[in-house]
């Protein structure tokens, strides 16, 4: 009996140890404990140089040759450096002519006699640049002021056979003596003369002679020539010179790249179009370049460039130059003297006011340079804070491996960034180096970033990565090519240990 009781108690005790309701209260579970290590590939990329072109926003300014050579092009168009409108005009003048003739009628006449006298005024139009035999007048005016001691003036007719209207009729203006003034708008008139720049104007003065005892008849004419421009002329162009200054700032790279590079084999090309119908010449006396960190220097010595007559653009200069450039922006100052008809030819030419000398400047900057220090900074929006990371990560080791044949060394700094508070939250790498290739073979480099437990939270709760590169060519003159590339892979070792709470807010 006792044995049976003991056996029953033993069995019952087994049940007691098993039957624990609390053991199944799963609502009480509040987390997961884990302890382990993960090896993960992270990011890979293969950048050929043309992909960097997109990143640096250079595609509109670059050209590429067949072998993959890269050229950075700067183009400037200078329209109407020498403008025909600024040559084909006459200066404003006031031509004052006094006429005096003996009185043909000595005494009082028995009856009035209608008399017409003709006076001819020769006016020389004034211009520094043109001698005109024929011209189409596009603007300008003649204004007459006439005074006289002749009594009883009935009318004065002003004529010139050298100025004709659109219908071919001679200029004819009727002057009303009572008004004392007459004017004529010459727009649309044709001027043609046998003596360059001269106009003969006839004044037909009509009066009634009766009681005029003055011994002389006086007739004064004041001709105002105003704003006289021609749209087309036939004649001669005298030696015309004009100084032109080219002063501009050009941006080489977007603001992300800073520093100074020595540029090799830069080509400066000039193309000009001259449709004046005569040769011209350009004296380039000054070409200076300067920039932040780049002392001002002369790009090339003064030189003379012929600008022959041509209706199409013709290359007149192609010069190879060397120098240093600031990667952000540089100032170019150039000054030259354009001379039209430098030989002072007396040939008769036809010239329009649309004639001009146009200039195109092209700077071809091959990506061949020697760099001591150029820096580039970029920011990647990588909101690591958007992901929920368990707070048990104790260490993250990130390996960045590079394989490149780009011919420059890169110093790398990588920072984690909090844009909301505008602060750097962590420095992943500092002064790491990617070895460049100066012999055409691919070079491998590895950068290791270790993030220990106390920094993990900073790294994983950032919203940006700042990449800062410094570039140098180790005193080599290097040439960049589209086919050069950099391959990049990264991998991570993550160690974790601890509890992940389900109810973390």
């Amino acid at each position, binding site marked *: 009996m006792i044995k049976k009781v003991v056996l029953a108690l033993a*069995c019952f005790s*087994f*049940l007691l140890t*098993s*039957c*624990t309701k*609390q*053991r*199944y*209260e*799963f609502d*009480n*579970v*509040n*987390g*997961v*404990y*884990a*302890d*382990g*290590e*993960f*090896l*993960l*590939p*992270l*990011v*890979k*990329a293969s950048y050929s140089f043309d992909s960097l072109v997109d990143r640096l926003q250079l595609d509109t300014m670059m050209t590429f040759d067949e072998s993959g050579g890269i050229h950075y092009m700067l183009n400037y168009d200078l329209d109407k450096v020498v403008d025909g409108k600024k040559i084909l005009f006459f200066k404003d003048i006031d031509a004052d002519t006094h006429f005096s003739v003996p009185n043909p009628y000595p005494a009082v006449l028995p009856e009035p006699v209608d008399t017409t006298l003709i006076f001819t005024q020769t006016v020389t139009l004034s211009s520094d640049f043109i001698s005109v035999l024929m011209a189409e007048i596009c603007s300008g005016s003649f204004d007459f002021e006439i005074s006289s001691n002749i009594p009883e003036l009935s009318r004065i007719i002003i004529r010139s056979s050298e100025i004709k209207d659109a219908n071919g009729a001679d200029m004819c203006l009727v002057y009303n003596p009572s008004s004392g003034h007459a004017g004529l708008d010459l727009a649309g008139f044709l001027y043609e003369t046998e003596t360059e720049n001269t106009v003969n104007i006839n004044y037909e003065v009509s009066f009634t002679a009766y009681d005029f005892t003055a011994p002389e008849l006086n007739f004064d004419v004041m001709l105002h020539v105003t704003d006289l421009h021609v749209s087309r002329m036939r004649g001669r162009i005298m030696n015309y010179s004009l100084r032109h200054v080219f002063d501009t700032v050009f941006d080489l790279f977007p603001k992300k790249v800073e520093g100074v590079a020595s540029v090799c084999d830069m080509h400066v090309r000039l193309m000009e179009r001259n449709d004046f119908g005569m040769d011209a010449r350009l004296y380039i006396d000054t070409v200076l370049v300067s920039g932040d960190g780049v002392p001002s220097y002369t790009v090339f010595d003064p030189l003379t460039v012929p600008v022959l007559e041509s209706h199409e653009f013709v290359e007149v200069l192609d010069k190879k130059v060397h120098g240093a450039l600031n990667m952000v922006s540089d100032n170019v100052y150039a000054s030259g003297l354009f001379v039209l008809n430098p030989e002072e030819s007396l040939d008769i030419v036809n010239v329009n006011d649309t004639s001009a000398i146009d200039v195109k400047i092209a700077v071809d900057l091959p990506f061949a340079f020697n760099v001591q220090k150029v820096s580039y900074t970029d920011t*990647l*929006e*990588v*909101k*690591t804070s*958007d*992901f929920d990371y368990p707070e048990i990560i104790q260490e993250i080791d990130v390996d960045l*491996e590079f394989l490149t044949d780009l011919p420059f060394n890169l110093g790398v700094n990588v920072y984690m960034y909090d844009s909301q508070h505008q602060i750097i939250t962590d420095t992943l790498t500092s002064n790491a180096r990617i070895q460049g290739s100066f012999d055409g073979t691919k070079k491998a480099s590895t950068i290791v970033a270790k993030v220990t437990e106390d920094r993990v939270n900073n790294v994983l709760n950032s919203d940006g990565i700042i990449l800062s590169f410094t570039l140098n060519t180790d005193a080599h003159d290097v040439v960049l090519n589209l086919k050069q590339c950099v391959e*990049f*892979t*990264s*991998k*991570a*070792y*993550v160690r*974790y240990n601890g*509890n992940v709470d389900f109810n973390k807010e």
Partner: protein
Amino acid sequence: MKKFQIISILALTFVSAIANAQNISPVDFMKTNPYKLRSNPSSDLPYDSHVSIGLGNICGDIRNLNFRLDNVFRYDASGRPSVIDLKNFANSLDPENGFNSILDLEVLGFGKKSKHGYVTYSHRVRFQLSSTISDDLFQMVAFGNAASTGPDNPIDVNVGLNALCFQEFALGYQIKATPHLSVGGRVKFLLGVGEAKSEALSVKLFTDCEDYSLRAFEDMAVRMTSPMPFQIANNKFEFENSRFNVADLLHSPGFGIDLAAEYHFSGHLSLMAAVNDFGFIRWKKNGVVLNGDIVDNGHFYDDGAFLFQGVEIYELESIFSDGEHQNQYFDNLKDYFTFETESTDAYTTMLHTNILLRGTYAFNDKRRLMSQLQFYCSGLGVRPALTLAYNATLNKTFDLCATYSMMKNSFDNLGFGFTCNLKFFHIYAATNNIIGCFKPLNTSGMNIQAGFVFTVIDKNRH
């Protein structure tokens, strides 16, 4: 002879220390329970007849060799689970972890004593499931992949699956061939209901030592059959016909036999050997094979594998800053792992065969000590098992049985069963792990069997 008896029992007991017990019910060891015939068709029953309808035998067996709730959690001072302990859980697993299940329902059964033996008939619906999973998946979740690098050391998530459901119509006969030898057997006509077996179901993940790239191989070949035609589309299982027809259950016939023999050396000692469920089913219709492989869905595909070497730099910003792009990116990754279904011709599967060796020492007519060695062949391997049992009949009314099973990492598997013999019927219930009934999530498994049977005693024997 006595020495031989003792040595035999001790030898079996010794073997038990190194074997894994499973799929055992105390009913098998009861003297008067008609359903002991299930494991030993040659067993002698003291009845003239027995009948059961629907409730004669309801049997469920769950075998969970490795997963223990206590290994999953850490507990606080009051005994409540507080934290999921992945490390402890992963360490508690074996390289291969099994989960088996058996459900057995007798629809109709009866037996009748004949001139020389005992004739039985039963109609049963049976379900058998064997599955295994390697521990690599849990090892990776708990410990990461740093310990599994190199071309010869992948994380190998391997799943084995073998499930079978069928109807059994069995005609049995038991006879005492000689005074010492009893033999018995059953001829079974089978109708398959459904089947699923994995020829291959694995994912291997290689981590490269140098660049940490992850290379995954998928291998899936799972064969399935169901009564009605079905399809799997968009990861959903759907029957093509909405109406079920009884004729759908008649497509897959089979045949099986149970054989047993028991030899009584003396009035005390006997040895029994049995082979149960040796047979096959021919699946003729609605067979489908699910074949899975890595498909070429983009730049992550590499020579039959999914190769992840990192995110492309131009995608990095989009993934981190654009939620929609992020979802599309991960959806695209999932599309590399696909499967397709194709019809299969008729094929044959074997039943999960059970081989028993049992030694019995009868102290007297009412008390017996038994030791049984069992080999369960599930199609995913052979699993040996051993049980010690003590059976006692009290007042001709109660037939009690206590069992003790030893399993890997678990030593508290005490089983108990009883049969209550009333005048015209038996009611019985048994489990091979009474403690497990109270902590089912922390036990390696248990068997529960119960039923209600009408019986007529053989007056000649009583």
